[in-house]
């Protein structure tokens, strides 16, 4: 089941920023006060856009840029139906919001004019779709679980809880019998239990995930080996070998070999000095093979492969050393200016329901290598997460519903969104204590980030500095919507297990006992 994570980012006419904020707050106010028969909270949006899971609308200010309007959407299915549902509900408000934005240049201009012209009734969805910014990397906690399914399974879960509370006689039965008793009653009320659900990750998606990651790795290897191939095909074998060894030696001297203080291992990998020795070894091996095969054996093919290996090792070593050069000179902002009022607004908006939301926009550090590495890093991280984080867990954390990073302002800024369970403080502490490497990799290219090493080390482990840095880059959203205000990522997965159990006609005692533990 496909889910989509995207955002629309538009520059705002500075003079209209406060009007825009008022429009957005107006939507929020209407949603929070309109009462209908059923639930009253955000009911119009909940029923009007049944595909929607999480959404935020924020006007973000920055001293170096005009304000931007950010509409962040996390929903089920493809964008088309979603935008249509949203426009159907908020057409007037969205048009008024767009009128506060700057007229974009380029191919969006005509669409924008069309939508924002006085008295215009033109469809807004095509513009929003065209203005969509796709995430550089995203994470979905409950992958492949549409809201409609979670709602069904919540009702089923509540039904089971009520029966267990109301029927103490069940306690004297075996787990198998308890399962049978609940299933009999549930089938009448929840006939969908007899129909198969769509798999959370379809075969096609699974193949695509693997293909993407493999493709990425192949491309990475290609990029690293191509210089060797080109040099070897034009010059005698000693030249690429010599260049490779020189590069590796420079990198080795720069990194000071083993004198580098050992950093904590990253995801089971050995410490950086060991890695650098290993990479140096690969480069040397490639050089020896390339020259040896050429001079003594006259195996041109093997010599070319050797040159490519040498090239990959040497390039990696040089990139690591170059990163070190950059990181040593990087200024890190030890005391980001914290606007107390802004922080108060953020804190006042937090911890109202089970989940919280954060939006942060940071400037990116300059330089070609950085620009390439941050994009390649996020790209690869994204493919890795698609395979690795499928059961709600990101490392040992199971608190993130939807999160994404995206480049904005023509690639000069990095935007981060997250919809997570629990407090902001605990969310950041989780990263600091359990998943700092991934976070540092994604954010260490941000201007002012606490000092990082080799892109992924240290950085976010500087707890207080990191929290201050993150706080100062955040804005309290004027509008934020969660489709299920009291469900955690964990609870959604737990309900899936309960429902799966009830789909099965009979469970043997061991399995039934395991199933009953989820209740």
């Amino acid at each position: 089941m496909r889910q989509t994570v995207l955002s629309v980012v538009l520059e705002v006419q500075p003079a209209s920023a406060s009007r825009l904020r008022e429009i957005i707050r107006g939507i929020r106010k209407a949603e929070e006060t309109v009462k209908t028969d059923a639930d009253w909270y955000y009911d119009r949006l909940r029923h009007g856009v049944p595909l929607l899971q999480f959404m935020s609308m924020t006007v973000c200010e920055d001293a170096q840029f005009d304000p931007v309007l950010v509409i962040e959407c996390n929903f089920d299915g493809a964008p088309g139906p979603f935008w249509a549902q949203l426009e159907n509900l908020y057409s007037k408000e969205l048009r008024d919001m767009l009128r506060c934005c700057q007229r974009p240049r380029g191919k969006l201009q005509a669409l924008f004019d069309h939508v924002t012209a006085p008295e215009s009734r033109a469809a807004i969805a095509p513009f929003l779709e065209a203005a969509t910014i796709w995430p550089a990397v995203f994470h979905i906690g409950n992958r492949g679980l549409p809201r409609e399914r979670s709602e069904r399974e919540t009702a089923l879960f509540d039904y089971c809880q009520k029966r267990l509370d109301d029927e103490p006689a069940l306690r004297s039965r075996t787990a198998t019998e308890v399962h049978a008793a609940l299933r009999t009653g549930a089938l009448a009320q929840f006939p969908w239990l007899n129909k198969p659900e769509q798999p959370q990750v379809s075969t096609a998606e699974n193949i695509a995930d693997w293909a993407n990651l493999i493709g990425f790795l192949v491309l990475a290897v290609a990029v690293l080996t191509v210089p060797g191939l080109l040099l070897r095909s034009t010059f005698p074998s000693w030249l690429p070998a010599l260049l490779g060894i020189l590069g590796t030696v420079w990198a080795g001297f720069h990194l000071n070999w083993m004198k580098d203080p050992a950093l904590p291992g990253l995801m089971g990998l050995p410490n950086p000095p060991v890695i650098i020795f290993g990479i140096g070894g690969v480069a040397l091996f490639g050089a020896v093979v390339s020259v040896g095969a050429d001079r003594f054996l006259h195996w041109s093919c093997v010599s070319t492969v050797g040159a490519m290996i040498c090239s990959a090792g040497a390039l990696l070593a040089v990139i690591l050393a170059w990163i070190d050069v950059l990181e040593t000179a990087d200024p890190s902002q030890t005391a980001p200016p914290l606007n107390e009022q802004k922080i108060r607004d953020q804190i006042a908006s937090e911890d109202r329901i089970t989940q919280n939301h954060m939006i942060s926009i940071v400037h990116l550090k300059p330089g070609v290598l950085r620009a390439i590495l941050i994009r390649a890093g996020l790209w690869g991280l994204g493919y890795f997460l698609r395979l690795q984080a499928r059961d709600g867990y990101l490392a040992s954390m199971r608190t993130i519903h939807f999160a994404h990073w995206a480049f904005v302002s023509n690639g000069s800024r990095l935007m981060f969104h997250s919809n997570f369970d629990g407090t902001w403080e605990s969310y950041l502490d989780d990263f600091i204590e359990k998943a700092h490497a991934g976070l540092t990799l994604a954010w260490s290219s941000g201007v002012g980030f606490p000092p990082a090493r080799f892109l992924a080390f240290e950085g976010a482990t500087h707890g207080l500095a990191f929290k201050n840095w993150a706080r100062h880059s955040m804005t309290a959203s004027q509008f934020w919507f969660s489709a299920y205000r009291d469900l955690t990522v964990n609870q959604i997965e737990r309900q899936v297990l309960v429902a799966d159990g009830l789909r099965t006609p009979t469970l043997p005692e061991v399995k039934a006992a395991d199933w009953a533990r989820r209740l």
Partner: protein
Amino acid sequence: MSETEVPRVSDRWKVAKEYAADVQGLIASPFADLPEAASLFLSLPENAGGSWLHALRQVIAVTPALGLTDPSIALAFTCSGLRQMGMDEAALGSFSREFREGMHQIDRSRRLGDDDKTTSIPGGPVWGGNTFDPYGKQATKTPVTVHAVLLLYAKDISSLNGLIAKAEHALSEAGVIVSHRVDIQVTEREHFGFADGVSQPILYGPAIVSGPGTESKWHRIPAGEVIIGQTNAHGDLAAGPIVAEVPEKPTMLGVGNAPPGYRDLGRNGSYLVIRELQQDVAGFWNHMDTEAAALGGGLTGEWLAERVVGRKIDGTGLLPETVLHPDSSVARTVNEFGYFNEDKDGLSCPLGSHVRRSNPRDGLARTQDEAHALVHSVNSHRILRCGRKFGPPPADPRQQDGVARGLLFMCLNTDIARQFEFVQETWLLNPGFATQADEVDPLMGPKGRMSIPACPFRHRPKIETFVKFAGGEYFFLPSLSAIDYLATL
């Protein structure tokens, strides 16, 4: 469990010599050998300055961490107290946000669960710092404004009374009023009858001399979690307040970690969290009896209460018998255990019980590999408790006697948000804690269901609230040299 099996905090570690004369004794020991104590909550006059500290010093002196002395004294200040004494806004701004805003700040009060009428005493909490809030909304006002707390500890009641009389006299001479007073004692059991204070973190680091038996992976935390200026669990120097250097003023404050032009006011100090929690003992036990009976199966009120608390009444962990009494060897120290290997699903100690929520150990891990990292993570959120009980123990725990009693909860930490508030919010009051849904701490939280894992399926009694918040605040517990500095204000 006998007393000897778990050495008291003070036996396990000491503050190193070069720090001990400056660190307040309360950090090193809860003065368990001095069973009688009183907490005097003070209100200062307008523009109090620091001279009242001079007056107080004439009769009693704050106790350093040099070893046990009778009597012992601790002193701490609220943010409004320091402002009342004339500390400038720049210096006040260097304290942590939590301290500056106070426990009753409107958003904090919501996050700590104190805005829930059912978890506070009728009429709402009585005392707090009533901290001035220049931003955001005004904090909830409490009837009594507390500027400082003076904690007095003595061997017996008569010497305590003498001490109180001396202090009160000196204070009133200086125009300082004791606006709220709670007499507190050391008792083996808290008022519901449970052995208390079993799990305490064990400090280590350059400012600490470790005693025997301090290698525990379950309880070791760096000294910077409790003492400002030391390295904390995130590897940073625990941040504290600084004051600008004034050339003509005496400089009893060291430079410490302060930048040039400043003096380190926080060094060797700590933040003290105090919460006065009233306990309705008869209400609790009668409710436990009723709910246990409703569960059927011959379950007793004691059985349910032990699951609510997460320990047996005698303080033993609720763990499988095989863990508590291994067949072969001498039983290991009963507090050295995790949940991951012993009781992952909470069949012995419910996942949502108070003790398991207060310190989840490795119980939140998904795999064996994670378990170790999780202990490290959990130990970045520990607090050093030093609270005591107030009110007499009940004669019959099931009989309403109309006597006020409870716990004066006190704990020390250097990062209130990451330690005390994290425990309260992310563990105790988190409705999604450890795979649970819509359940909070059964002892401290508002009333609600509590899942008790069992076969074939969980019990889920409704537990009401019998511990109620009566007042509290965040205090700065300065070093002795910082107190000397404050006296010059």
